[in-house]
């Protein structure tokens, strides 16, 4: 018996050989995630396109339900290690007890060569399984496009038919008599279950600008129109000698909230010479004189309904006042900003977290009241 004790112990111990229940990135992400509300988990997903070399993935829930957040259907933006980027549609399958990918994938094109995200993905309110892709490319702004992707989970199709493409450079989409390109598009959430607006910044070859608003998705029937606070149709200067003259791409945001009038516009721009992000803001009336928010030295990803600016650059969340003062920072390791959206009538900021376990991918979707975002910094 004595001789057996040690071998038995070793065998038992080896039976329990397992990796440690620990992953540094996931633990670090929990610093922020535990302060968020876990809206749910979209997963497990049976299989995803090119799953073996995914380096980044974001789940975009639909907004079709009355509450404005539907985790049973959504789009997944994937980035592979080879620079390939795809968009797929996944939906909950009750019979199989897991999420399934419907149909094929949409090509989102190669990763951008500059620091700008060159795709804005917006799931469309008031329509089922519809996504609107704004494709903006600094190398050829005249080729910027809107692409619509529709899925049909019942028949397992995505995209249904040929993706509808409309050129943002089309004169039909902007006021007549003006030439130039759309260089920035942003969505601002509406507390309306069927309506979302996007705001566009249009730039002429002579460095004049025009700001437009459009329904999501825009169409020839409902083309972008000028903002009431930015009377057109003539394009206007943002000031003389601006460093972003010749700009071909920027991250543009517009804060339409009347209570904060005069309404502000923001341009987040990457200064190659300084190798850092810079941010300008302007407000009415004409003539405008854009001023730099020197405190905002990171990419701006959203102008929030609180009037604050949110940056999620470099796995770090940064919340700035509308005047560019840094209010707080919080770690975002592994958490991807989806968008700000109204959920059950409350403006919330949504985050997606890609997980892979038990051989299948999943996404945790978190939210936090936009008004509580400043508490994440502890």
């Amino acid at each position, binding site marked *: 018996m004595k001789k057996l004790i040690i071998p038995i112990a070793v065998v038992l111990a080896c039976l329990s050989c397992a990796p440690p229940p620990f992953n540094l990135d996931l633990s670090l992400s929990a610093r922020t995630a535990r302060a968020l509300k876990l809206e749910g988990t979209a997963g497990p997903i049976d299989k995803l396109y090119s799953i073996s070399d995914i380096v980044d993935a974001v789940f975009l829930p639909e907004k079709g339900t009355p509450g404005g957040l539907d985790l049973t259907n959504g789009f997944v933006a994937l980035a592979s290690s080879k620079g390939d980027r795809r968009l797929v549609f996944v939906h909950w399958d009750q019979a199989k007890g897991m999420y399934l990918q419907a149909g094929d994938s949409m090509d989102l094109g190669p990763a951008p060569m500059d620091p700008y995200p060159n795709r804005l993905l917006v799931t469309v309110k008031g329509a089922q399984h519809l996504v609107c892709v704004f494709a903006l490319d600094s190398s050829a702004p005249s080729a910027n496009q809107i692409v619509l992707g529709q899925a049909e989970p019942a028949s397992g199709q995505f995209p249904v038919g040929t993706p509808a493409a409309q050129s943002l450079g089309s004169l039909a989409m902007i006021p007549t008599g003006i030439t130039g390109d759309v260089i920035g598009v942003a969505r601002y959430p509406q507390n309306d279950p069927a309506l979302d607006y996007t705001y566009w910044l249009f730039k002429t070859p002579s460095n004049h600008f025009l700001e437009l608003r459009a329904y999501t998705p825009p169409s020839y029937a409902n083309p972008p129109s000028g903002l009431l606070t930015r009377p057109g149709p003539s394009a206007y200067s943002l000031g003389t000698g601006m460093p972003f003259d010749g700009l071909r791409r920027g991250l543009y945001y517009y804060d339409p909230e009347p209570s904060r009038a005069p309404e502000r516009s923001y341009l987040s721009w990457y200064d190659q010479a300084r190798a850092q992000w810079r941010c300008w803001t302007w407000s009415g009336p004409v003539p405008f004189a854009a001023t730099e928010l020197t405190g905002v030295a990171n990419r701006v990803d959203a102008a929030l309904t609180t009037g604050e600016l949110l940056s999620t650059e470099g796995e770090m969340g940064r919340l700035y006042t509308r005047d560019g003062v840094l209010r707080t920072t919080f770690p975002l390791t592994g958490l991807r900003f989806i968008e700000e959206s109204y959920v059950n009538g409350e403006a919330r900021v949504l985050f997606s977290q890609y997980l892979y376990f038990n*051989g299948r991918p999943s996404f945790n979707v978190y939210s936090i009241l936009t008004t509580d975002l400043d508490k994440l910094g502890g």
Partner: protein
Amino acid sequence: MVAKAGPCALAAMLLILAASAVFAQDAGAAAPRRVLLLVTQSAGAGWDNDAFSLVSRSLFLGVQSDDGVRAAGTIIVEPPSGSVPASDDARARAARAVGADGWLWIELPQAPGGASLRVHSFDLASGAQDIDEAVPVRNGLSPLELPAADWSKVAHLVVRAFSPTAAGKALAAARTSARLSIHARPGSVVKIAGGTAVTIDADGGTSVTLDAPGEYALRATLPGFSPSTQTLFLTSDREVTFSQAPAVRWALEGSLSDAAWPGVGLSWFAVPDSLSLGIGFSTYLFGLALNEQNVFASQPLTNVHLWYAFYMAPADSFFRAYSGFVVFVRIIHAPVYFGLDPLSPVGAQFVLGAEIDRTLRGGFFLEYVPTVYFTNLPTLFQASLGTDSRIPGWLFGPGFAQNLLTFRMGYRWML
């Protein structure tokens, strides 16, 4: 009726007679004696190993093959190891361990050229020490002379001391009682295996009368002191003294969790030998991965443990079971972050373990430690286990993740 009863009675009578004959034969038959042969050399003797082995072997073969020994049906048994117990009691235990009922102890002379052997014997059946005498050796015991060695005198002594009939007579004649005086710390309870328990008086002694000859195992216990046991062969009045060491209050342990991750701990026995409180840590900073990709693994995580353990068996048990409860905190020590693990800062373990064959200095232990990790993000915790496979033993629920298949083993040193 009579006619019928006759054959039956005859058959029954024959059966009884046959059975009686068998029993009579059994009662009169002498079971073969088994004698343990022990050979030693005197302290400082000049025997080298080879010569000593040759003489020992020659003695064994010579006595075993002696006609007189064979005729008496005596079987000579060699010890399983080369060491020879130092005391009569120990030699008696060694003899019983090999199924012998007596021992024959031969001390070789100072040198191979010596003139005599010293022969001792003890008959466990009778409790008699029959032989204690010198046996002359002709021509010495040098290896060259061994082929001509004559062990008949030794064999004769064996026949005389261990003859079957002598044993039976001696046993019957010698059956009596003896007084055992026991000395131990005052208040100690001394339990005699298969018998009663006695309490040591304030003077540190007591006595008990026991059947003799007989082998007895005694165990003295006293709160605050380690149990002490002694085994003795009682043939006549004698004394026994227990040395009782104070029970240990501190223990240091080194361990390996899940056969991979090292740990260190320090225990303090709040109740000696019963209840221990401890603090320690186990780290994932370095460990054994033992998979196809890596031999070693490292994660910037260390668990700091606090525990109590309750022992369910005495300190001298071969298999000393205990159970306990552990709470631990998970501390990340990465360059980018130092502090409690935000994902699961706290966990707990139930412990069911055993110290195995522990001595006063320490012993090996093995623990089954089902572990629960508290987390409000169980899916995140599940993902932290790895990507590919379902790991057996894990359960996940609201607010927790549980590993039911985890073990810890190590060594615990008594300080």
